[in-house]
C-alpha cells in the first residue's frame, strides 16, 4: 500500500509564504528514503482536481511523523495551508527514487536553490547518520527565506555557504558563483558526491559548471505531474538518449549528466 490517510500534526508559516506541515504517517516514514516525494490531495474536491507533489523535508522515526516544507504559490498550496491539526490528509508515498547514498564518497556537496532546500534537510540528516562530511551551498532570493538559524547547521558539523540574490546575506548573487569558485579550487573531487535540488536555471548552470569535473552529481527535478506513479506519461524530462524519462517514476533524482534541462 502506498496511499494513506494521515493525521495532520502541525502547520506553521516559518517565513513569508513558506510553510512547514507535519503529519503522522509511520508507514511512509518507515519506507521512505531521502529524495523521494509525496503526492498530496489538498482537499476532497474536484477543484483543484490533481494532487500536488512535495518532497519529504524531514522524517522523525521515533514519532512516525514527517515534515513537508512548501511555498504557497497557487490554488493547491493556498488550500493546503488551511488544513488544520487533527484533519486527515490523503497522501500517496513514498514515490519515486531517492538519492543514492551508497556511493564510495566521504564528502557530500549539496546545492539547494529556493524551495530546493526542502528535501535537502532529509538528505543532510541521512548523510550525517552515515558519517559523511556535508558542504551545503544554499541560494535564495533574500535572507528571509533562510528559515532557520544557520549556526544550528554549523553546530551539526556542516560547512555552509549562502548566496542571496539581493545581497542580504552571504554572497550577493547566484549560489552557482561561490560553488564554481569552490569547485575550481577544491582538489579531492573524486571522493566527493554532489547532490542538487533547485530551479531549472540553477541546474542548467550546474551542468555547465561541472562539465569537466570528475565529480558525480545527482539532481532532483520537478515537473508538472498527474499520476505521480509512472502511468500517465505526462511528467517527462528529455534524456540524452533522445527520448524522455518520467520524473515521477524514473526520478525525481537523476544523474546530472543524463538529463537535458535546456528547454
Amino acid at each position: 500500500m502506498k496511499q494513506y490517510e494521515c493525521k495532520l500534526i502541525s502547520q506553521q508559516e516559518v517565513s513569508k509564504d513558506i510553510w512547514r506541515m507535519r503529519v503522522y504517517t509511520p508507514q511512509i516514514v518507515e519506507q521512505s528514503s531521502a529524495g523521494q516525494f509525496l503526492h498530496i490531495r489538498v482537499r476532497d474536491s474536484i477543484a483543484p482536481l490533481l494532487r500536488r507533489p512535495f518532497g519529504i523535508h524531514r522524517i522523525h522515526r521515533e514519532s512516525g511523523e514527517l515534515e513537508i516544507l512548501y511555498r504557497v504559490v497557487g490554488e493547491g498550496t493556498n488550500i493546503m495551508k488551511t488544513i488544520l491539526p487533527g484533519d486527515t490528509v490523503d497522501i500517496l508515498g513514498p514515490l519515486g527514487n531517492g538519492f543514492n547514498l551508497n556511493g564510495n564518497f566521504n564528502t557530500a556537496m549539496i546545492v539547494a536553490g529556493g524551495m530546493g532546500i526542502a528535501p535537502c534537510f532529509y538528505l543532510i540528516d541521512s548523510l550525517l547518520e552515515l558519517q559523511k562530511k556535508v558542504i551545503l551551498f544554499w541560494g535564495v532570493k533574500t535572507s528571509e527565506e533562510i528559515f532557520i538559524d544557520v549556526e544550528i547547521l554549523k553546530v551539526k558539523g556542516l560547512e555552509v555557504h549562502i548566496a542571496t540574490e539581493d545581497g542580504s546575506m552571504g554572497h550577493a548573487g547566484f549560489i552557482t558563483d561561490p560553488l564554481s569558485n569552490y569547485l575550481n579550487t577544491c582538489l579531492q573531487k573524486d571522493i566527493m558526491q554532489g547532490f542538487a535540488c533547485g530551479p531549472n536555471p540553477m541546474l542548467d548552470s550546474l551542468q555547465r559548471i561541472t562539465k569537466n569535473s570528475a565529480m558525480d552529481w545527482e539532481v532532483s527535478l520537478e515537473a508538472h505531474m498527474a499520476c505521480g506513479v509512472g502511468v500517465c506519461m505526462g511528467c517527462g524530462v528529455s534524456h540524452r538518449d533522445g527520448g524522455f524519462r518520467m520524473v515521477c517514476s524514473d526520478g525525481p533524482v537523476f544523474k546530472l549528466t543524463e538529463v537535458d534541462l535546456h528547454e
Partner: protein
Amino acid sequence: MSDMKVQIGSLVLKNPVMTASGTFGYGTEYMDFFDVSLLGAIVTKTVTLEPRYGNPLPRIAETPSGMLNSIGLANVGIKRFLSEKLPALSTLDTKVIVNVAGHDIDSYAEVCRLASEHPRTDAIELNISCPNVRQGGLAFGTDAVFTAQVVAAARAVTDKPLIVKLTPNVTDIGDVAMAAVNAGADALSLINTLLGMGIDIHSRRPLIARGLAGLSGPAVKPVALGKVYQVAQKTDVPIIGLGGIMCWEDAIEFFLAGACAVQIGTLNFVDPQGALKVISGIDTYAKEHNISSISELTGAMIAPE
C-alpha cells in the same frame, strides 16, 4: 445478492468497471496500491507497431475540474508490449483489453492482429480517437468512411471481441458509431478526450507544447453522458461509457444513459483506489435497490419530454 457480471459481446466481466487506456499504464504500476484483480477489466495504454516517445514537453496541464494531455501515444511498441508487459499480467484474475492504434489502415490491422494473437489478450480496443497524433487517431475517428475502413480491417484480423473507441469531437457521433457497428465492432467505448487548449499568460506559450490537447476529467462528464445517450438511441451494440467518472453515482448515470459498463480514467490519478470505490458503491446501490443484475440499469433513464 445482485449480480455485477456484465457481458460485452462474448466478453464477460465480473463487474462493469474497468480502468481506461492511458490512465493505468500496463496494468502493473498500481499493484502497490490495491488488488488489481478486483477490477472488471484493465485496458492497457495504447500500443502501436513501433515504440513512440510521444509528444514534446510539457504535455499535461490542469484545467478547471479537468486536465489536458497530449502524451502522443508514448508506448513501448507492440514487440516489447507482448514480450514484457502482457506476460506480467498473466496471474491477474481480471480481463485484459489491449488498446491499439496505427497511423494508417495497414498498421491498425497489423497491430491489432499481433495483439489478438497473444493468449492474455481478452479483447481489443481500437483507438481511432486520439487527438494527439498527426496521423491516425482523430483523422479516422471523425470521419464515418475512414472509421468503417479501419474497423473492417481490424475485424478481418481478429476473432476477439472488438471494441471501437470513439471521439466526441464530431458533429454527429451517431454517424460514426453506426459506421463502426456496420463494419463489425462488437462494442463501442466513448468518449476519448475533448479537444481543448490552455495558455500560460506569463510565458504566452500554450500550456501543452503542441497547443491543442485532449481534455478529460469531471469537466467533460456532461458531454460524455450526452454522447453515450445519443449513441444508445442509435444502436443496441454494447456501450462502454467513460469521461469524468469520479464516483459510483457518476457510473450509475452512465448506465442509465445507455452504457453497460464504464471505464475510469483521470480518477485513477486523483485517487488510485477510486475505481474500487466505484465498484463497491455500485454493488451497495444494487443491493439497496434490489437490482438483480446490473444490466437492468442500462438505458433505464426515463425518456425526456
